[in-house]
């Protein structure tokens, strides 16, 4: 179970796990990106995911994917500058993982980064954004 205090957040409702623990299996200098339970709950049942391909260069603030639910379409906005190193193919084939385990098996992409942006939010700051 992921400790939510260990993650960083964006006001676009992405979470970022910064690789400080090799046991997590993340490449050094990499981050894992997903969407928060709050976002998954607001979207409703996720039925389709479009994620960037491995090797895609992404920039912070840029739309890099789509998350479709029964009712609406959400955007995946990259929280970092970097290159996509891995895509969660299991989540692509089982998009319901974003609802059932958004902080775990429902992760979306891994990205190598040169620098972690300074404006990511703590859990406390993120909870102020969502008002929850």
């Amino acid at each position, binding site marked *: 179970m992921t400790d939510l205090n260990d993650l960083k957040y964006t006001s676009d409702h992405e979470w970022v796990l910064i690789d400080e623990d090799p046991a997590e299996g993340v490449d050094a200098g990499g981050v894992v990106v997903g969407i928060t339970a709050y976002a998954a*709950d*607001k979207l*409703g*049942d996720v*039925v*389709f995911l*479009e994620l960037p391909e491995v090797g895609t260069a992404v920039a912070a603030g840029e739309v890099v994917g*789509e998350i*479709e*639910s*029964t*009712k609406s*379409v959400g955007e995946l906005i990259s929280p970092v500058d970097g290159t996509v190193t891995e895509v969660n193919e299991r989540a692509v084939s089982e998009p319901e993982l974003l*609802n059932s385990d958004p902080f775990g098996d429902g992760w979306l992409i891994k990205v190598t980064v040169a620098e972690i942006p300074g404006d990511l939010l703590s859990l406390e700051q993120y909870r102020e954004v969502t008002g929850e």
Partner: protein
Amino acid sequence: MTERLSPLDAIHRAAGATFTDFAGWQMPVRYSSDLAEHRAVRTAAGLFDLSHMGEIVVVGPEADRALDYALAGKLSASVEGQAKYTLLLARHGGVIDDLVVYRTGADRYLVVANAANAEHVADELRARTAPFDCEVFDESDDMALIAVQGPKALEILTNTPGFGIQGDGNDHDDFVHAVTGMKYYRAVAAEYAEQPVLVARTGYTGEDGFELYVSPDQAPALWEALAETGEPHGLVPAGLASRDTLRLEAGMPLYGHELTRDTFPAQAGLGRVVALGKEVDFVGRAASEEGPAADAPVLVGLASEGRRAGRAGYALFDGDGADASEVGVITSGALSPTLGHPIAMAYVAPRHAATGTTLYVDVRGTRIAASVVDLPFYRREK
């Protein structure tokens, strides 16, 4: 604008519902999962709060004639206990609202309007029926509406204690007999805990089911009773999100999507709802007789492969190349939970409306092939 709350609001909050603003009302959009609620209605039953709908009573010796003039259907031909799907047309022939009208007495009708249009419908009915000997009462604030929908709906309703038939000594067996034998689009004046409730075999999900019109005071107890009886039968509370995918699969038009003031009923496949055969004049008659222009877009069903759904407002093209022309627009679309592939309703130019035609949906920059198919997408086995 103040948010209006359903009389069942506290129950929904206790159940952990997610809410949405719907025509000024805070209504439950889902309780747990849209898909689970959708599937429950298809396989067992769902319990819906529709208290935001508008209920308008038209009563008086000339109520039947007044409604024949005010609405597109021949309401005078309804018998007591009968419901009719009908339209409130503008003089120019467009649709102001789609309605279900119950004849609840010889001189009494209950008109059910969409929440967003309820006040306007009441105003229009008052104005149109003014020359007749009848009165119009907007009773939207005095009526809650609970729907039980799904193959288990009858079983759940008849097993819920506390029902009786009005004026019949509140005998449960009489109630069971009455609702079991009731045809689709019929209603009976019943009682729940000795208070009046109109029990109608109507709905908006493509399943068998009942809609219960009850006083707001009585609604929480009725909801809890149905929920308790229904739970072992697989009944779950269901929100507006599942209601939308259910009605879409059933090919049922939604006001503001398939129906608007600029839409002629004939374009939406509802020409039969306009009773041009009735002898009297009615608002919108002249325009309806003339009909829409020959090249006016018509409503079609679309089915596509994969999982990416075209949604309301997405454009349709006659090809996937740069030289393709825009030939229509989607009014409602979703990945069908029952069928497993994307479905949509769309208005397209008549020359592209034939069943089997391939069109291309612009899904945020990607053209996805879709076939014109017959509506509805889903039809329950009877």
